[in-house]
């Protein structure tokens, strides 16, 4: 299998001019994802997961190190990658349908074709009938599903997903997980998936990457090694719980060493 995505020694510093502080969000992140692989990232809040995804997408330039997709260095976003953003990022002045076709519009794809493609994915996320609603007329979970459709419709080789199911109830969430796995298998996509739900990470992934607390580093990578297609019942099997316990242990270690709360940004440099 070919390497699809490679992050080498990624370091990222945020500079805050107002307080003249710099904050090291990522420090020496290494990760290799194979073609067609499903990899999840878990880690404590604020450890740099979203930051890492932005670097992979090319939205933020790494302070050090480099990202390669298909062997080419990433310097900016491209149609081979698509992001499902963590926060509500739908354009509020566009209807559901206009939001979903937005990326296709940016590529200059004809309106009729874009709409036809959008319909399929709006249908898939269970929102047909809501094409002409505005985002503020939808629930948080519905908005997240539009967010998902907007990325899927781009048919990217690599899907970068930042807690896409966080606002969904348990049932819808499991339905969407299965749907995502179906798309992933059928369209042979490579997925980098961020989540706070450890069981979700295990159920979906080939490997789970555990990040350490800030500055983010790869603390450990865990092979899930369960056959596919997986049924939802694997979540109740002993080997599933064993992996879950192990990941919990890794994250707890980290939380314990920082029990006093989040570390403040680094002090000003002189």
């Amino acid at each position, binding site marked *: 299998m070919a390497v699809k995505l490679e992050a080498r020694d990624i370091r990222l510093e945020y500079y805050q001019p107002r307080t003249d502080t710099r904050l090291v969000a990522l420090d020496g992140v290494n990760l290799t994802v194979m073609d067609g692989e499903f990899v999840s990232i878990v880690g404590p809040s604020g450890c740099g997961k979203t930051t890492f995804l932005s670097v992979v997408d090319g*939205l933020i330039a790494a302070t050090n190190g480099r990202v390669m997709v298909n062997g080419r260095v990433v310097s900016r976003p491209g149609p081979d990658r698509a992001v499902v*953003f963590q926060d509500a990022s739908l354009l509020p002045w566009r209807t559901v349908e206009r939001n979903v076709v937005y990326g296709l519009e940016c590529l200059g794809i004809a309106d009729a074709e874009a709409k036809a493609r959008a319909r399929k994915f709006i249908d898939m996320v269970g929102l047909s009938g809501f094409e002409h609603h505005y985002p503020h007329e939808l629930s948080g979970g519905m908005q997240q599903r539009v967010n998902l459709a907007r990325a899927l419709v781009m048919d990217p080789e690599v899907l970068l997903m930042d807690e896409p199911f966080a606002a969904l109830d348990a049932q819808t969430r499991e339905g969407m997980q299965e749907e995502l796995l179906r798309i992933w298998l059928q369209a042979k996509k490579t997925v980098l998936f961020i989540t706070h739900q450890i069981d979700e990470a295990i159920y979906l992934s080939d490997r789970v990457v555990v990040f350490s607390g800030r500055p983010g580093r790869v603390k450990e990578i865990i092979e899930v090694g369960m056959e596919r297609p997986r049924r939802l019942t694997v979540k109740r099997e002993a080997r599933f719980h064993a992996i879950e316990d192990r990941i919990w242990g890794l994250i707890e270690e980290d939380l314990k060493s920082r029990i006093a709360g989040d570390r403040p940004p680094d002090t000003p440099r002189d």
Partner: protein
Amino acid sequence: MATAEIELDAGASAHPSTLARFYREHERSIIGGGTLLAVLLIWEGVARSGLVDPLFLSSPIQIVKAGIDLFEGGEIWTHIQVSGSEFLLGYALSVAIGIPLGLATGWYRRLSYLLGPFIDALNAVPRLTLMPIIVIWFGIGIWSKAVVAFLGAVLPILIATNSGVRTSEARYLQVARSFSASELKIFTSIILPGTVPFIFTGLKYGIGRALLGVVVGELYAATAGLGYMIGEAGDTFQTSVVFFGVLIFTATGLVSVGVLDALERRFETWRPKAGAAS
């Protein structure tokens, strides 16, 4: 018997009396119109009571009479035409320059560095002090007043548009960049929709400033126009004519802002309504 009563009650609450419904549908006009009517009645009453010299105060009915006389005399049409042209020319010019320049200075940082000092200076100078120069440059015809109206309206439009662009939300810009949107696409799909309410605020504020420019310009140097008419009437103590002129300006301002409001609502159908419930 008891059942019948209950049914009657239920019927009443499902179909409230037509009067109550009329009130609810027209609450805004009723409250607004009511206070206006009350003020006019008090004004008329005070004028008739003889407590105040009618030369000072005029009265609503006298103002209406003065208006009828003015239209019968026919001369007022020239004044309306002159002032109208000045207003429309000046305002159109300020829209045509203020919006594009506001967008451009908001978008291109260097352009705002370049033009910022001029904009700030123009904003700081009391524009009326420029009147003599404007008259020297543009004469006492309609162009000098159009220029004063333009100078009044262009800055609010420009400044509001500029802040609209600069407050564009970072996360929407990030979405556009993630989809590899071109600069032009980012501008039309992210910047512009977010800036529309700012532009309308500037446009509405600009109306008042342009009207002010017309009046003041005509009071200063003109041979025709409603401001000129008001000035003349003031000099000869025709209070009612002054008030009638003021009324025309006020009506023009209100109608223009009303048109802009309607236009804005068409652009802003996507926006959830904000504000207190009552």
